[in-house]
């Protein structure tokens, strides 16, 4: 305990001394985020320095081992760091799929050489990664992916197409699921490879969503040469890594499903848009009943998220229940935005102009429609609940 107290004091002092003043206020928009990488344009010297200082200490990835550039902190120390950063509203120095996704996978499945080579630049924010999973023909059924990776003796040759690659147009490297064996049963012929997005034959095309611009891209591979040492784990066994990362991702999404509720309640929004009667009750009574239902569900859902965390702390894993949180949270979020739209009537339809902040609400509403698709559709989550939690049988092959 004394050690931890000392660590806390040292951390507080260090942050006080090193965190630039302009980095001590919450990010207002996505554009304030620092993603690092070869081509990143820092918004300010403070932003650049803050990343540099934190990266050098390994505190962008506090719990990773020091030998790979990480902070080498224990879980308790890491929590203290988080708390101390929150105390002064310090911005995260780096947003990174490398830290969130690839790093944990490499630490678990990578070779010693790979850890040494790839992890330190991730920690320092020098290389920005993107993730190549889905394909036009492989969405919910990811294991049916077809991007080909052929063994050409001294290198692999990759051909195919990925879709829904976030920030592919801005990333330096990609971690990618590819098919290395077309004979094996479909889960068994998949491998996990890394390569430079600047390689010859890689091209990207941004995807516009129904809500407008998006970070998503289509990514094309046309005879891309990949060094053989860029294979992670065992050849044809990349599905294990994929599964590990998918569960990891679902827990992240499920966990954030309720964040929309932190903001103003639906009822308040509706009252300010449509007015209330003398008792303070929303004057549109039919809408009031619907909002009440959504609010009741929202509260019960938030409590369920809280309970899942409490149970995790008490030693029960979240496990397949993350599917429940993902399913319910995203469906609820869609319902909430439908009601938000209803509350604001015609003004909710404004797509351009200052009054609507360039259509912020309708675009956000449309964007929610994707919540129940990305990261595993609602249908996939319901399948997982049915099988893994309820133990319902698969159809018998007759």
């Amino acid at each position: 305990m004394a050690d931890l107290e000392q660590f806390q004091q040292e951390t507080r002092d260090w942050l006080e001394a090193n965190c630039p003043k302009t980095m001590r206020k919450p990010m207002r928009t996505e554009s304030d985020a620092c993603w690092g990488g070869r081509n990143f344009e820092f918004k300010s010297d403070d932003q650049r320095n803050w990343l540099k200082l934190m990266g050098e200490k390994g505190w962008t990835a506090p719990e990773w081992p020091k030998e790979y550039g990480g902070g080498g902190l224990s879980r308790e120390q890491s929590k203290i760091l988080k708390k101390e950063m929150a105390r002064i509203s310090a911005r995260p120095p780096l947003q990174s799929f490398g830290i969130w996704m690839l790093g944990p996978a490499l630490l678990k499945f990578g070779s010693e050489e790979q850890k040494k080579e790839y992890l330190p630049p991730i920690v320092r924010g020098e290389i920005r990664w993107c993730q190549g999973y889905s394909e036009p023909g492989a969405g919910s059924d990811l294991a049916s992916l077809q991007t080909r990776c052929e063994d050409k003796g001294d290198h692999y040759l990759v051909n195919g197409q990925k879709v829904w690659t976030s920030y592919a147009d801005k990333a330096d490297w990609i971690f990618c699921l590819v098919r290395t064996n077309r004979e094996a049963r479909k889960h068994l012929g998949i491998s996990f490879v890394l390569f430079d997005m600047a390689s010859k034959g890689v091209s990207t095309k941004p995807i516009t969503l129904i809500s407008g611009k998006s970070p998503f891209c289509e990514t094309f591979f046309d005879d891309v040469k990949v060094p053989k040492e860029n294979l992670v784990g065992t050849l044809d066994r990349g599905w294990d890594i994929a599964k590990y990362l998918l569960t990891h991702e679902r827990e992240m999404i499920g966990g954030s499903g309720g964040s929309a509720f932190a903001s103003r309640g639906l009822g308040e929004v509706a009252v300010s848009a449509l007015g209330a009667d003398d008792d303070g009750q929303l004057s549109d009574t039919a809408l009031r009943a619907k909002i009440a239902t959504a609010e009741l569900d929202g509260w019960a859902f938030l409590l369920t998220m809280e309970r899942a965390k409490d149970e995790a702390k008490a030693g029960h894993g979240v496990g397949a229940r993350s599917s429940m949180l993902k399913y319910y949270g995203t469906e609820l979020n869609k319902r909430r935005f439908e009601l938000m739209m209803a509350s604001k009537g015609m003004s909710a339809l404004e797509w351009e102009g200052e009054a609507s902040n360039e259509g912020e609400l309708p675009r956000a509403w449309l964007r929610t429609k994707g919540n129940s698709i990305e990261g595993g559709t609602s249908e996939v989550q319901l399948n997982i609940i049915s099988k893994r939690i309820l133990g319902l049988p698969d159809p018998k092959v007759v």
Partner: protein
Amino acid sequence: MALVYTEEQEMVRDSAKGFLAEKASVSVFRKMRDAGDTLGWSRALWVEMAEMGWAGILVEEQYGGLDFGMTGAALILEEMGKNLTTSPFLSSAVMATQVLRGASEAQKQAWLPKMVSGEAVIALALDEGVKHDPASSQLQAEKLGNGYRLNGSKAYIIDGFDADGYLVLARTDGEAGDQDGLSLFLVDAKAKGISTSSTKLLDSRNYAGAKFDNVEVSGGDLIGEAGKGLDALEPALNAGRIGLAAEMLGASAQCFETSMEYLKDRSQFGQKIGSFQGLQHRSAHLYSELELVRSAVIKAGQDFEASAEHSGMIASLAKAKSGEVAILAANEGVQLLGGIGMTDEHDMGLYMKRIRAAQELLGDYAFHAGRFAKWRGF
């Protein structure tokens, strides 16, 4: 009357189908949207539609119209819904002409022939707030000699940008919320003191806000009786609501058809996804709901033809039910299609946006459910 289409009505539908497929399909709409067109529809195409008789489909024959009836107009709107066709058909040909049925002979002579030929478009300037509620109008019409002086503003006027005339709901008496005391004026868009601005909504169609700053109108510009504007408006609102219900039926039928094709085509886990019972049951449910909507739309058209003034309850039924099911159809469409349905490249999102707007226009589900309940005595 049997709830089936007549042969003539089927013929109108077939000709609309062919015409729209050729001249006003979704890809035409998409091009217009991408070009950022402010009018939101094509004048040349509207003249072509007028030549087919559509602009005068509800107009008496002595003014050049076909007087064909609401069921036929609804069928055209259904096909327009399928194609996301834009035109002033709903605003001017379906709604404004209904108001003009109560106009003076002089007013009719002045406007109807031009409207029927596709030359002139009249928009209805009704609502002032974010929710459809004509009775809450505050725009003032102050008596001025034989005429009136209009002051106030209107919002979200359908096809109100660059219109040739406006039917303006103004208060000659009483206060906001009163059913009585509202009057309807037919005002030339060139009248002094009117300024309009385009409002871009998510469905990329023509909407406008309008300001009326000491706009002077004559007594001859009044439609019907002063203070009875809501009564004069009722047939037009019924027509517009039935029309929107029909348009949404077409749009949702298109969403459904696209979804079913996708379910039969797309494979996952070694199966056509249309073989998954979870998706089958949802599809079958949506099919059932669409059948209910069609019944309500047909009935509403027939009731309107029997009595435009007294078709309000079934018009509300059609508008409410069609909007509810259209939202379901669009939501299911995007979800069943998965990622591809979320891309702007796919048409599903265009339908979702139009449906969202159409279900809000002229009263949303709650508005019409409440009206329906009132009629039913609870």
